[in-house]
């Protein structure tokens, strides 16, 4: 206990003071790992150096632009009633593309419901992500095809799955790594704490990638934690690092290093990507109820795409033709997404009874038969009516 806190404890305080919610901690903001400043300047970091070719840099830029275009299209489709809901990643492109491009094909990804950019890096057709938001399925892709697991809506659950999967990888003697994505809000869930414990004591090759986008719906990060999130790891016995989540180069370098550490058998790492959710939590949310307008403006100045573009232009790593071509490619992607979604058929009614069980179930068979007969009775009466 510090001198101040003992003295304060002796002083009688108003009850409301004591029960009041904790205010934002006073500690100074910790250092972010940064390799590209918001102004588009390349800077060096002693622990995380990276050397990318012009091609690779343009590739990262392309990934971010197309991901943003896809995301914007999905938001528009929701507004047009084609999707029931959309969770936008606007502002988080660097965190997702940087970490996603650090992965090897044999690594396995456990996303939340917002990792559209990571899915892109894994080669999942983006239109596959839209089925669950349209309401035609609960996932709709084969997780084993690209080692990209299904989205998880229950907050934090997937961090345990990732840990277990990683334990399996280690048992198999493989040198793949596993990455689990989650939000700053999720860090409060028991499952996340349990996954930290398990991964630490079993030395599981897993990287916990927390996108701290400052908000959990209406609740700011201070409602979840009093210490910077990356510092949590220390108490569990593994390293944590905070990276500029709007800097795609830093996200790539830090994630790559954490994955390599996992591969070497040195256990988990917590990466906190410090970023910002530029839009609403989802299309159902209304951030004007809880968020100051100028906050977004401040973060817009740190836009991940803009800063890489500035760098590419300044260093003459990309010419005008590259940007125009990319523009055309974006429009084509948007158009394709629109067409595929509009053409997505509703599921067949009888598909209700599919896939509940791998080995079948007599009760389900009976209910399916009853349902089919009931459906058919409408067809019969329609016939009779003719």
């Amino acid at each position, binding site marked *: 206990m510090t001198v101040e806190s003992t003295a304060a404890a002796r002083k009688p305080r108003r009850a*409301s003071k004591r*029960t*009041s*919610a904790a205010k934002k901690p006073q500690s100074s903001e910790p250092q972010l790992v940064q390799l590209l400043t918001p102004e588009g300047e390349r800077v060096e970091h002693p622990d995380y150096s990276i050397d990318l070719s012009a091609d690779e840099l343009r590739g990262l830029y392309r990934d971010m632009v197309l991901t943003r275009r896809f995301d914007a299209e999905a938001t528009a489709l929701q507004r047009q009633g084609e999707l*029931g*809901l959309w969770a936008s990643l606007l502002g988080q492109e660097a965190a997702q593309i940087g970490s996603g491009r650090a992965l090897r094909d044999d690594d396995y990804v456990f996303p939340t*419901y917002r990792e559209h950019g990571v899915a892109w890096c894994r080669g999942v057709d983006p239109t596959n992500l839209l*089925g*669950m*938001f*349209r*309401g*035609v*399925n*609960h996932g709709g892709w084969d997780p084993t095809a690209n080692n990209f697991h299904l989205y998880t*809506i*229950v*907050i*934090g659950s997937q961090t345990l799955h990732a840990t277990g999967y990683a334990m399996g990888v280690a048992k198999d003697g493989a040198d793949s790594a596993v990455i689990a994505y989650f939000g700053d*809000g*999720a860090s*409060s*869930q*028991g*499952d996340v704490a349990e996954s930290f414990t398990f991964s630490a004591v079993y030395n599981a090759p897993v990287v916990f990638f927390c996108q701290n986008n400052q908000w*959990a*719906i*209406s*609740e700011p990060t201070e*409602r*979840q934690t009093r210490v910077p999130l990356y510092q949590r790891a220390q108490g569990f016995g593994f390293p944590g690092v905070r990276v500029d989540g709007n800097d795609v180069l830093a996200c790539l370098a830090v994630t790559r290093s954490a994955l390599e550490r996992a591969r070497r058998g040195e256990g988990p790492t917590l990466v906190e990507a410090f970023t910002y959710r530029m839009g609403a939590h989802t299309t*159902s*949310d*209304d951030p004007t*109820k*809880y968020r100051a307008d100028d906050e977004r403006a401040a973060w817009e100045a740190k836009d991940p795409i803009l800063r890489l573009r500035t760098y590419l232009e300044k260093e003459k790593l990309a010419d005008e033709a590259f940007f125009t071509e990319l523009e055309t490619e974006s429009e084509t992607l948007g158009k394709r997404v629109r067409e595929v979604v509009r053409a997505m058929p*509703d*599921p067949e*009614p009888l*598909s*209700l*009874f599919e896939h*509940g069980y791998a080995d079948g*179930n007599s*009760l*389900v068979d009976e*209910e399916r038969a009853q*349902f089919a007969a*009931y459906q058919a009775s409408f067809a019969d009466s329609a016939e009779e009516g003719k």
Partner: protein
Amino acid sequence: MAVEKMSIAKALNESLRLALDTDPKVLIMGEDVGKLGGVFRITDGLQKDFGEDRVIDTPLAESGIVGTAIGLALRGYRPVVEIQFDGFVFPAYDQIVTQLAKMHARALGKIKLPVVVRIPYGGGIGAVEHHSESPEALFAHVAGLKVVSPSNASDAYWMMQQAVQSDDPIIFFEPKRRYWDKAEVDTESIPGPLHNAVTVREGSDLTLVAYGPMVKVCLEAAAAAQEEGKSVEVLDLRSMSPIDFDAIQSSVEKTGRLVVVHEAPVFYGSGAEIAARITERSFYHLEAPVLRVGGYHVPYPPARLEDEYLPGLDRVLDAVDRSLAY
């Protein structure tokens, strides 16, 4: 008399406001309940008027929410906690089932756990996974808990008052797709006990029993059946634990036929319990087996299939016809 027309959402909001106003020990806790007023705005404006010490935005942790509510209740508070959606109660299920439900009995009655757990539940709003489920049977099966669900604004208002005043833990299921349905609420005349069923439509040929979101469907079915000359009585159960079997029994002994309707899967659902007890109590009065209409034994389907899954007018009327055909 103070009669006002309001939605279920508004009635709950007004009721919580009254509870906070009358008893300084009442607390509201949950994710986003403060500035946002909850994702359904049920707690809208309450933090502004009662402060952050009474209307508490919690960390995103359901086990934490219910677990700390238990501690607060042990210290004399009366927490009303919000679980954001039905499918997210499960991280808290351990605390609810192993602790909240049993502590009173373990203390030989020496302590009380006046905790209300509010859960917006049920489908029909086109939501993604885990936002449309009806897990009431999972709670009703647990001794020590009471489980209720209003179907209209007046009940929402009064049942919430009664739940907050109850010294037992109450799982308070709110039919989310009915939140915006309006009805008259008399905020002065106190209605009957929390766990009583209410006859919402008189009839003589058959009894429909429902609760929460399905009451409206059953009333529509009864009206449709009336056009075909069938007189259907509708009972709003309001409480799934305990269940007002006396009310169901007397209705069934008048009509001779019973159909139970709920959104939750039929298999091991509350309809099974009702069918078994009523068969035992009223065997010689029944003209037909008790029928059940509800969800299938499948994971709650994606939104574009939920109309097939949820009992609608046709499926209820079909069951009415089948019962009357015996």
